[in-house]
């Protein structure tokens, strides 16, 4: 219990450093807006009345203890949650001017705009090149020269070009976990989405790979709106502009990251970020 204050202080420092960061985009456009979003896995009420506005060109972190619904929440944003057959959803989610549950809005179109990086790196068992080219190819880009350029640009964008440029035809499974994860990020960038959802993208990675991915997230937010689920509070404090704290399927608090970490409004948020539970 005595280490708590030290940990607390560290967060405050990190958060304060961010205040001097001039690159924070202050635009207040919204990419996602949820209204009274409720979700059930069978009888299990996993998300309860979620009302959130996710800003454009910022990094929004979703934090909370295991099982609080944070992963479920971002999987709902690109409707990947529907892979679970027993899911029921009520309420609405707007992605920009589209209602994502509107049957006229194709789920494939949504997922083309809203990319996703998963917890465990999941490259396809194909060459590095084919992994990146997969997305453009299914969306009708066949020209080899164009694909070559997309592959290079995406790999550069994911800060892994220099590591793999001489082995583009090798199987992506020959790479390390951290490299595989950046391949997955590059694969996501290749179709130039608008929003990138990241579901604990560094939880399976070593500290150095984690750092690389975090730096990458900072770089990417210039062009993309990023929503990142993390169980690592330091990570949320380091890389995000906004933070939402989830607990038992509810949003306890949602505000600017430095605000949330230095001056939490809710007692439960304070307890969580100071390590009293979770």
């Amino acid at each position, binding site marked *: 219990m005595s280490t708590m204050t030290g940990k607390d202080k560290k967060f405050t420092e990190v958060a304060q450093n961010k205040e001097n960061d001039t690159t924070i985009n202050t635009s207040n456009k919204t990419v996602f807006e949820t209204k009274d979003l409720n979700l059930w896995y069978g009888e299990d009420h996993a998300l309860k009345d979620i009302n959130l506005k996710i800003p454009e060109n910022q990094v929004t972190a979703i934090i909370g203890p295991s099982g609080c619904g944070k992963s479920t929440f971002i999987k709902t944003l*690109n409707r*990947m949650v529907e*892979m679970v*057959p027993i899911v029921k959803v009520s309420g609405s989610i707007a992605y920009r001017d589209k209602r994502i549950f509107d049957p006229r809005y194709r789920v*494939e*179109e*949504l*997922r*083309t705009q809203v*990319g*996703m990086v*998963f917890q*465990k790196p*999941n*490259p*396809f*068992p*194909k060459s590095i090149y084919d992994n990146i080219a*997969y*997305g453009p*190819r*299914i*969306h009708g880009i066949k020209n080899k020269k164009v694909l070559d350029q997309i592959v290079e640009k995406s790999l550069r964008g994911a800060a892994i070009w220099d590591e793999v440029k001489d082995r583009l035809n090798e*199987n992506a*499974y020959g790479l390390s976990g951290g490299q595989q994860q950046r391949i*997955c990020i590059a*694969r*996501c960038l290749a*179709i130039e989405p608008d929003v990138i959802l990241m579901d604990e993208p560094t939880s399976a990675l070593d500290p150095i790979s984690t750092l690389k991915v975090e730096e990458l997230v900072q770089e990417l937010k210039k062009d993309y709106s990023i929503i990142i689920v993390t169980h690592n509070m330091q990570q949320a404090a380091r890389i995000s502009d906004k933070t939402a704290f989830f607990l038992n399927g509810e949003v306890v608090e949602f505000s600017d990251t430095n605000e949330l970490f230095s001056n939490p409004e809710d007692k439960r948020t304070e307890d969580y970020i100071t390590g009293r539970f979770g």
Partner: protein
Amino acid sequence: MDKNINVRDMIHKNKQSMNIGRVWEKMVPKVLLSIAIISILTTIGILATLTVETIAFFREVPILDFFTGTKLKPLGANAEFGVLPLLTGTILSTIIAMFVAIPVGLMTAVYLSEYASDKVRRTLKPLLEVLAGIPTIVYGFFAYTFVTPILRTFIPGLDPTNILSPGLVMGIMIIPMVASLSEDAMSSVPSEMRQGAFALGATRLETTWRVVIPASISGIIASFVLAISRAIGETMIVTIASGSSKNFTFDITQSMQTMTAYIVEVTGGEAPAGSTLYYSLYAVAMTLFVFTLIMNLLAQYISRRFREEY
């Protein structure tokens, strides 16, 4: 509760009696190995018999005549032993069967693995496997008395016994094998990979075609090869429905004999031991064996060549 239970003492006491167990433990691998060797010895025994008798056959019929001869007249004064009529019969019936089994089996597998709900899959898969349990003689009968008459209404020139009908029925017989094994291969592709594709805006078909099938291609090819081997070795259906004409032809509406059907015919008749006719059985069996062996080696090569490691 008995508080006097002393587990440590009990274990120590049991240790003495466990020595026998330890000896047994050491014997187990040897016993299992000798059992495993039985099947290897059987294979070697069969191969040895085949080889010896085949060599005896080639002393009487030159090897070149056997493999290039288009006439097979095993009986009578001027017996001729060309294997080509049997080879074409076997190859054609197998090809016809694969034209049925591969597309239908693969599409069934795709449906079961990628589209069907759990409930549907749990009902359909066992039903499909019932098809695999039907005795081949029933299929043969079905080909001869049901499929051939129907085919003859469409194809007027079709012989009452022909290679087309048993080929098609053999294909139906093999569908469950292709479907079931391919489905196993596709289902074992981790769902994370499908999610990766879905998250890029891929449809289910694009995911199946470009991710799941390539990732499971080695298993799928393995299922094709097992099916081909099964078709090559299939006996009853062709024996019943394709007759015993030893035609050398590529016309699938005609009666043809396969290698297996020839063996049935000759063993069923009187082939005195030591006669050329008798030895020809072994030569044909050897050819059949080499055939399936080559198929298996080829398949292993192909599946290794196209394997996508994950």
